[in-house]
Structures are given as C-alpha cells and as structure tokens.
C-alpha cells in the first residue's frame, strides 16, 4: 500500500479583496476577517493523491499546521476523500518561518509512521517561500522534486516525473519515499461532492500539539525560526499619475497619442 501524506496550508482566501495592510500610524498589521481556505496549489497536491488512490491501493493522510480554525480545511480534504486528517495546532507553533514549519511537519510525519510519498504545493499564496516541501524532505533525509507537473511513470521503487524548469522541463527519476511539490499543470482539482461531505462527518480530525510531537519548545514556532522580521518600511517611489478623462474613444485616442509622443509605441 502506498502511504501518501498531503501537506495543506490554510490561507486567507486569495479571492477576497481585503488584503492585510500595515497601519502607517501604529505600524501594526490591520488584519481583516478573510475566511481561511485550502491554499490553491495544495488542492492540486490533494487531487494528485486522490488520482493515485484511484489507481492503486493507497492511504491518504492530510497534515496541516495552523490555528484551530484550520480544522475546517482538514475537514474539507476528508470530504474530498482523505482517509485521515491531522491538525497541528499549538500556541508554541505560532510565528514559525519556513524552516520551523518544515521541521514541525517533518516531526509529525515521523510521528505518523510509515509513508512513501509526501505531496506539497509548490508555494503557498500567503507565505510563498516554496521552502517548506524541500526543507521537510531534508529533515526527513529523503529526496525532493519541486515543481512536479506530470507523473510520467510509476515503478515499484523508482518513479519518473516531469518538473518545471525555466522555459521547459526536467525529467527526473526518483526513489520513494520522496517529497514532491506540485504545480497547477499537474491536474484539475475536483469539486467537493455531497456524498463526500456526508462521509466526512464520521471521520475524526486528530489534533496534535507540542506534547504529542515530543519536540523541544525552542525548535518550533517563532523560537525555532532562524529568520525574523526586523522592520517594515513604507512603499517605494511613486509616480505622478495623469488620469485621462473623456469618452472611451477620447481616452483611447489620447493615450495612443501620448505613447507615440513618448516614443514607446
């Protein structure tokens, strides 16, 4: 049986207009109540797991580190067809950078026990470092392929995948267990089904904190993070805008003339 672990992150809905901004006066974050959703690329990771499960005997475990509310997105993955959902939630985990996040996830993977394939998104929409997958693989001492866009061949031990590479792709042969981070090209994530939602009602989410993982407090969250934010400066240079008025035709004519005068078209 293929044991698959999918790492999903709860992120503020990227479709919601309200962005987190800094208050220029107090220099604090002005958060707005944007609902948490599954990070877009993690849906592709989840879909990849479901596709594999359709092909072979597989078990899907979803792993997410986040606030207690992130339980909802774990539930969503259970409704999609994951067999087990684990939420890592503990005040001690808060403020983690990519390194501490990857470390905490790696420790949880060891705690889950046997695994063959770990699937992550290439990037999260809010953190967007792209580091969590590869760093996790390093902590677990297993190979990593980033930007996987096609699984070409599934062998007993060796898999062949296509990974994004500059203007083309890279063909990679890799031995499991391994970490793949996936891109949008890999698949089209399915929608939630009603029967899935019903079935997921019976599935329990496992919640782990620092005690369950048995790791020292200095190794997780903000304490376990080698990088910190030192300061925030306001926006860079601005340009003096000329807002063009008139009818649609007039605006179009005017801008074409201006750009011709500037010698750029």
């Amino acid at each position: 049986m293929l044991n698959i672990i999918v790492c999903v992150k709860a992120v503020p809905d990227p479709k919601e207009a309200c962005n987190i901004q800094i208050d220029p006066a107090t220099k604090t974050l002005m958060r707005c109540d944007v609902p948490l959703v599954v990070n877009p690329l993690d849906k592709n990771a989840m879909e990849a797991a479901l596709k594999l499960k359709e092909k072979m005997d597989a078990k899907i475990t979803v792993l997410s580190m986040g606030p207690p509310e992130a339980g909802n997105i774990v539930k969503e993955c259970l409704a999609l067809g994951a067999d087990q959902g684990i939420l890592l939630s503990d005040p001690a985990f808060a403020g983690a950078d990519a390194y501490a996040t990857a470390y905490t996830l790696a420790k949880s993977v060891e705690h889950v026990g046997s695994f063959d394939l770990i699937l992550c998104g290439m990037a999260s929409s809010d953190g967007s470092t792209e580091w969590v997958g590869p760093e996790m693989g390093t902590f677990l001492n297993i190979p990593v392929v980033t930007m996987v866009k096609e699984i070409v061949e599934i062998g007993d031990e060796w898999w062949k995948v296509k990974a994004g590479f500059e203007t083309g792709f890279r063909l990679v042969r890799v031995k499991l267990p391994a970490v793949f981070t996936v891109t949008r090209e890999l698949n089209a994530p399915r929608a939630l089904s009603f029967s899935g939602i019903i079935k997921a009602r019976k599935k329990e989410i496992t919640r782990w904190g620092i005690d369950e993982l048995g790791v020292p407090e200095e190794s997780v969250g903000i304490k376990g993070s080698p990088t910190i934010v030192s300061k925030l400066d306001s926006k860079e240079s601005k340009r003096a805008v000329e807002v063009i008025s008139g009818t649609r035709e007039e605006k179009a004519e005017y801008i074409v003339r201006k750009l011709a005068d500037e010698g750029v078209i």
Partner: protein
Amino acid sequence: METNGPVWVIAEQMDCRLLAVSLQLIGQARKLADRLETSVEAVLMGDNMDLQPQQLIAAGADRVYVGNAPDLADYQPELYTELVVNLAKARQPEIVLIGSTAMGRELAPLVAASLKTGLTAHCIDLVLDENNILEARIPAYGGLLSIICPEKRPQMATVAAGVFSIPEPDETRTGEVVRMEIPEHLPGRIQTLEIIQEESEGVPLESANIVVAGGAGAGDLEGWNIIAALAKTLNAALGSTRPAVDEGWTDLETMIGQSGKMVAPELYIGVGLSGELQHMVGIRNAKVMVAVNNDPKSPVFEQVDYGIVDDCREFVPVLIEKIKEYKEKQVTC
C-alpha cells in the same frame, strides 16, 4: 577582531553558459564583501567549465570553486547539494546568495535546511544593517519588509534575475580557481535524466520593449483573451499577476513580480490589476507606465504615469482599434 567568512554566490550555468543572474549576484556580493572586508567566492558546477570561472572573477569574484564533471553537466539535486553543503562547512561563508531560478529555488532550501540556517525567498534588495547583519528585503503588507537571520550562519537569500544589474567586467582582475573533489560514488536516490527547453510562443518577457500585463480584473478567460489581443497588437510580451496564473488563464512563466520575473521595458500597460507591491516590484524600472482599472481609488494609480479608469473589457477593444489606426497611418506617410 573576528574575521568574516566569505560572501558566496552559487553560480549557475545552462548549456555551459553562465546565467546573467549569477553575474548580477557577484556584483552585489562584491558590494557586501567590501563592507564586510571579506572576499567573494563563487561555486560553479557543470561540465567543461574552463572559461566561465574567469568570467566570474572579472565580475568581482576573488575565488571560484569549480565542480567539473560530466555528471554535473545538468543540475543534479543530491550531488549539487552535497558538494555545496560540504564546501560550506569547510569555508564557513557569512552570506550565501542564489538565483531564484528553477534550480536555485530547489537547491537553496535543500542547502539551507542541511546547514540548519535561515533562507529568505525572492528578495528585491540586500543591504547590511549597522551591525553588519544582512537585511533581505521583500515586499509585503503594502511596504518593504526586512528579514534578518541574526544568529544562524550562513545568512541565505534567493534573488531573481534582473533585481541587480550585471557589473562591468574587469578583465584585468585576477582570482583563484579551485577544483572541487567530486565523490566517486554518486548519491543514488534521484537523478535528472534530461533537461528540455521548449520554444515559448510570443515575445519573451525578458527582452520585450513593451509589456502588457493582465490581472484578476480580466474576470474570465474571455476577458483575458482581450488583454492578450492588446499584447499582440502592440507586438508586446504578455505578463500576468498571480491570480491570472491561479485561474489558469496563463502560465506561471508570464508572472511578473517578486516570485516571478523582473522586467524593465520601455512601456508597461497593466490591465485589471491592483498595483500590489509584489507585482509592481517586477516592473519598477519600466520607462512609461499605464494602468487600466475600473476603480478610481485603486492603488495602481499611484504607481503609473497614465491612468485610465474604465472597465477593461470594454475599453481595451477600443484601444486596440485606435492603436491599429495609428499604426496604419505610420506606414502610409
């Protein structure tokens, strides 16, 4: 007084040619190293790397470590990581800079986690603070965030091509070229079998004189195609923001910004995008900038030279017609 470790650049080659970003990073590493009163060292892996080290030296490197072997011709994750990590343990660099290329984005976290240190992603500036700690700047929360790695070493960062400029080569500079030992038993859990470059259609972003970028305001694929048609009319490269990529209207290769491409065209036209800094840093060196957005209060209008408040799906087709008229007139007289 404690002496500082070197400033490192992990250089990259493709088909034996050094990537521009490697030379750009050497230029910035030189500035940092001069302030730290230390040396610049480059690490280069590939095959037939005979002339490339001198190019790195001319750009400002003092010492180049070269891994030269047929097995290193293409990026090999395990082998490259092992070589860099072992050398870093021996040389104890203070700072390690890596290009935000496909290779760099994978190799950097593999190396950082192996060295148990921090890594800042896709920086748009690198400076030293008053304590000579590296401040890696990234756009966030409508401003510029400085990230530091105060205790762990090396301090690591990735930087996209185009953030820094290529230094003027000084062919008279001299430096040391050191051959790296290549392990006889290659690590065996992962291999790059082949790297294939595909011809991309349309005008490439990096060299385009005109860039038309579309954003979430396109609304749907139909709206996106209108923006793409504008690019075609102007013989421009088509760029995008992240939501356009997420929606699947365009490929990741077209994304401009902090985690995408950095471009500096003569003309930039941003259509249906909000002027979020993570996108705008990728285009800050454009000569003339135009934005089309239906929200007069959109922050994009603070960052461009000409603003048009209108629904892009309605306005762009009219604009295309006017451009065509202009071009026809140009030909006849």
